[in-house]
């Protein structure tokens, strides 16, 4: 029996979303590269282009320190986190408003729409991640802490999901998010240690950069894959921000979702 009142979504209910998330992600994957000459090859080009640009900008021009790791592998590890973060953010921000008909005319669970972008953009994670793991293995950087990579992936997913559900929900009310997201991502890329490390920054700047939840996560990935000692402060701050952010995001989304069919 259902009585039409405000009943908040509970986290366990997400398990029931699995088939719908899979179906929506399948739809996005199938339709993304229709009528496209290079199709899925774009998943490779995007991080590759950034890697080349970083190698020129940060390595050849700025001479970034990489603690004895070849620069391209150092940057590639940062790009594992960044490429997925960017791909999901760009896909998720319009995931509700672009599915106007679903939100307005069906009972399709709202949170399934931004969460499906996490699944449909997995290739943007898997390809750089596989490349980084293989390269780190061949060059002999892999140590026992590489076994923590699955946990670091979970951390990445939680952080990305938080951003995805917050941005998609606010976009339903205020389309400003659609305009501001690409610009914010550009700024974020330079304020995150994707193409550089934090060890050579001044203490003040290092603290400022650590407030970015991506900083500790990227440093944790570099430690796990390449053995570069991370800043404990950055890791703790990022982990705390991820957990607190996820809780806030859940509250925000579940309070906004009841009126999404009216607001969209």
């Amino acid at each position, binding site marked *: 029996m259902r009585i*039409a009142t405000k009943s908040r979504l509970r986290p366990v209910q997400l398990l029931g979303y699995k088939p719908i998330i899979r179906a929506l992600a399948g739809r996005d994957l199938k339709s993304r590269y229709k009528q496209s000459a290079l199709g899925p090859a774009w998943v490779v080009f995007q991080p590759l282009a950034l890697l080349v640009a970083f190698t020129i900008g940060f390595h050849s021009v700025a001479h970034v320190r990489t603690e004895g790791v070849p620069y391209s592998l150092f940057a590639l590890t940062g790009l594992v986190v960044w490429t997925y973060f960017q791909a999901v953010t760009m896909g998720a921000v319009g995931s509700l408003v672009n599915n106007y008909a679903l939100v307005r005319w069906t*009972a399709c669970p709202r949170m399934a729409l931004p969460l499906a972008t996490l699944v449909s953009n997995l290739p943007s994670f898997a390809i750089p991640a596989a490349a980084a793991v293989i390269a780190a293995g061949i060059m002999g950087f892999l140590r026992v802490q590489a076994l923590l990579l699955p946990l670091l992936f979970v951390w990445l997913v939680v952080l990305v999901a938080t951003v995805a559900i917050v941005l998609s929900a606010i976009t339903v009310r205020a*389309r400003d998010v659609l305009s501001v997201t690409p610009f914010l991502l550009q700024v974020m890329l330079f304020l995150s240690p994707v193409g550089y490390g934090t060890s050579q920054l001044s203490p003040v700047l290092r603290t400022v950069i650590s407030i970015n939840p991506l900083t500790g996560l990227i440093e944790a990935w570099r430690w796990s894959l390449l053995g570069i000692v991370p800043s404990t402060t950055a890791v703790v701050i990022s982990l705390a921000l991820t957990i607190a952010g996820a809780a806030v995001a859940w509250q925000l989304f579940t309070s906004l979702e009841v009126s999404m069919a009216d607001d969209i």
Partner: protein
Amino acid sequence: MTSEAVDPDRIGPPVVAEHLSKTYRLGELLRLEDTLRTVTRRATARPLLEALRGVSFEAYTGECYGIVGGNGSGKSTLLQILAGITLPTSGTLTVRGSVLPMLAVGAGFHHELTGRENSFLYGTILGLDRQVIESKLADIAAFAELERHFDTPLKRYSAGMQSRLCFAIAMLFPANVYCFDEVLAVVDGEFKDRCLAEVRALAAKGATVFFISHDLEQVGTLCDRVMWLQDGASREIGDAESVIERYGRHVAGVPDA
């Protein structure tokens, strides 16, 4: 909802609505002009629209319940609340069992995907198991008479073909309450008759069917009872024939008796 199949009459009607009201704000949610007005403290509140005003009704198992009324009278809003897509501003609604909303043709379809792929997508969104859809694919194509077009992208379909596919998938869904909002407007006569027979069969099997249409003849032949909505209020609820007759006279401009 298996436990509820025991004795439907002892637990009361499957749908009970009491004083449902829904209020919207007119105009746009956000505009630069309004933002500036808010900043300069010259904001004026946007006018309200009462889409539904205190609508009460109940519907029984095996009943076809028609809803008629002019554009903007609140029909679709009522079904959106019934389907749990939006909440009433005030009032209570109790629904026992699952609801299948079919409020817009093609909501849930993707134009780049084929008929087959869309059947999986839309079926899953409605809550069907993958295996169930898989086993019914041939039936969907046959009912919609789209066997030849089943592997063609939906963007090549006509509006009528999309309606056919949508209806064929929805018919597979075993729900207690079905909501149809003007979904047979663009299909041809032959298919319409088959759909109406299917809808009738759903009710005969014990479902409750809500049916919105501007085709009064259709509502008259299909429905047992009809609600006439006017400006968000239920003007009349009664047996289909008499309500439709009076509504038809009202539409034709004949003064109310």
